[in-house]
C-alpha cells in the first residue's frame, strides 16, 4: 500500500505575468520531515501554500491522501486546513489580544470542542513545549522564542496529519530557533506527523530527513535516490 501523503503533479502558479512555480512534481511520504530550500523568491513559500490548499495552482494537481485539493471548494479546503493540516509561520501570528492558552484552543473551538476540554489539551501541549507557565500570558509578555512555541502548540493541537512550517525560526536567534526545531521534530516523530518546512537556513534543513531544493520556481533536487543511484 502506498504511504504517500502528498503528491503534486506538474503544478504551475502564476502571479500576473510572473510564473512562480514551473512544472513542479513531488511526493511526500507519511511521517517524513522534508525541508524545502532555496534562495528568496524561488517559489518555496508559494509551493507550501499550494500544497496546503491556501492557494490553488493554475495547472496540475495536488493530492492529499488521494483527494485532489485543486478541485475542492474553498470551504472544503478550509475545513481540511482546520482538521488535517497545521500551519506555522515565521512570525507565529498568534492573536495578540488572547492569552497563550486561548490562542492554542482556537483551532479546537473552531472544530466544535468545548472551551474547557480544549483548554486542558492546550495546557498539556504548552507544558510539553516548556511554556506551560506562560498559559495566562499574552504574546506581548513573551520572548520571540516563547511566542513561536505557543504558535507551534496551536499548529499541533489538532494533531494534524501534516504540519506546514514557513521559515519557523526566521525571526529567532540561533538558540531560540534550535529549541523550536528540536520540539517541532520531537513532537512530529512522536505522533508520526508529516512535516514540510520551508527554509533558506541549511541548519534548519538539517533537521529534516530530506531536502527539496528549489530554484527559479522549479524543483532542482528532491533528495530522493533513484534506482540508477542518481539523486533527484
Amino acid at each position, binding site marked *: 500500500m502506498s504511504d504517500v501523503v502528498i503528491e503534486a503533479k506538474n503544478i504551475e502558479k502564476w502571479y500576473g505575468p510572473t510564473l512562480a512555480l514551473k512544472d513542479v512534481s513531488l511526493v511526500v511520504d507519511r511521517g517524513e520531515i522534508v525541508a524545502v530550500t532555496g*534562495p528568496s523568491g524561488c517559489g518555496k513559500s508559494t509551493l507550501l501554500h499550494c500544497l496546503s490548499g491556501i492557494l490553488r495552482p493554475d495547472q496540475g494537481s495536488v493530492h492529499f491522501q488521494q483527494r485532489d485539493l485543486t478541485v475542492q471548494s474553498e470551504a472544503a479546503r478550509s475545513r481540511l486546513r482546520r482538521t488535517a493540516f497545521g500551519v506555522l509561520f515565521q512570525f507565529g501570528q498568534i492573536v495578540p489580544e488572547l492569552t497563550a492558552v486561548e490562542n492554542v484552543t482556537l483551532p479546537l473551538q473552531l472544530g466544535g470542542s468545548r472551551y474547557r476540554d480544549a483548554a486542558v489539551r492546550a495546557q498539556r501541549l504548552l507544558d510539553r513545549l516548556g511554556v506551560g507557565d506562560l498559559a495566562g500570558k499574552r504574546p506581548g509578555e513573551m520572548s520571540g522564542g516563547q511566542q513561536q512555541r505557543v504558535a507551534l502548540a496551536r499548529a499541533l493541537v489538532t494533531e494534524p496529519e501534516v504540519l506546514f512550517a514557513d521559515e519557523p525560526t526566521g525571526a529567532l536567534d540561533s538558540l531560540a530557533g*534550535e529549541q523550536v526545531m*528540536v520540539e517541532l*521534530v*520531537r513532537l512530529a516523530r512522536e505522533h508520526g506527523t508529516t512535516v514540510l518546512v520551508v527554509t533558506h537556513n*541549511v*541548519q534548519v*534543513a*538539517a*533537521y*529534516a*530527513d530530506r*531536502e527539496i*531544493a528549489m530554484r527559479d520556481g522549479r524543483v*532542482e*533536487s528532491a*533528495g530522493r535516490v533513484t534506482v540508477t543511484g542518481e*539523486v533527484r
Partner: protein
Amino acid sequence: MSTTHALLGVLAARGISHGYELKREHDRRLLGVKPLAFGQMYTTLARMLRDGYIAEAEHQRVGGPDRVAYRLTPGGHTELVNWLSQAVPPAAYVSAQLFVKVIVALIATPDEATARSFLATQRAAHLERMRELTKTKTAGGASVTELAVADYLLNHLDADLRWMATTLDRISQLRSEVAA
C-alpha cells in the same frame, strides 16, 4: 593547531596526569580534531619538559612499566595564558580542498548545469554530515563540550554551503572572466 597548547590546556583542566590520560582527554575534549598519535604526544611532552612548561610530578607503576605523571609549571601556565590572549589570525586565504574543487568545477565544466550537478553532490554530502551532527545535538545527553563541537562544525559546513550558493549565483560572471 598547536598540540603544545592543547596539551597545556588539558593539563591545566585535569591537574596531574600521565601521558595516556592526557591523550584520552585531548581526544574527548577536542572532538572533530584529529586524534593525537602517541608518538606525537610523547615528542610534544618531551619538548614541553625541555621548555619548562611541564614537570614530572610522580612515577606511577600499575602492573607494568613506570608511567610518568606530569604537572603544569608556572612557566607553562604563563605560556597558556599568553597563547589564549592572542587572537587567531583570520585566514588570509582558503586552502581547503573544497575551495579548489568548486573553482575547478566552475572553470573546467562545459556548462552551468554540469557545474551545478557536481556541486549538488557536494551539497548532499555536506547536508548528510549536518544531519548527523544535528542528531547528535538533539539526541539528548550531549555534554556542553559536545554541543560546542557540533555547533562549530555545523556553522562551518553551513558557511561552506552558503559560499557555494553565492558562488553558483556568480557562475555566469566567473565564466565570462575565465573565457576572457
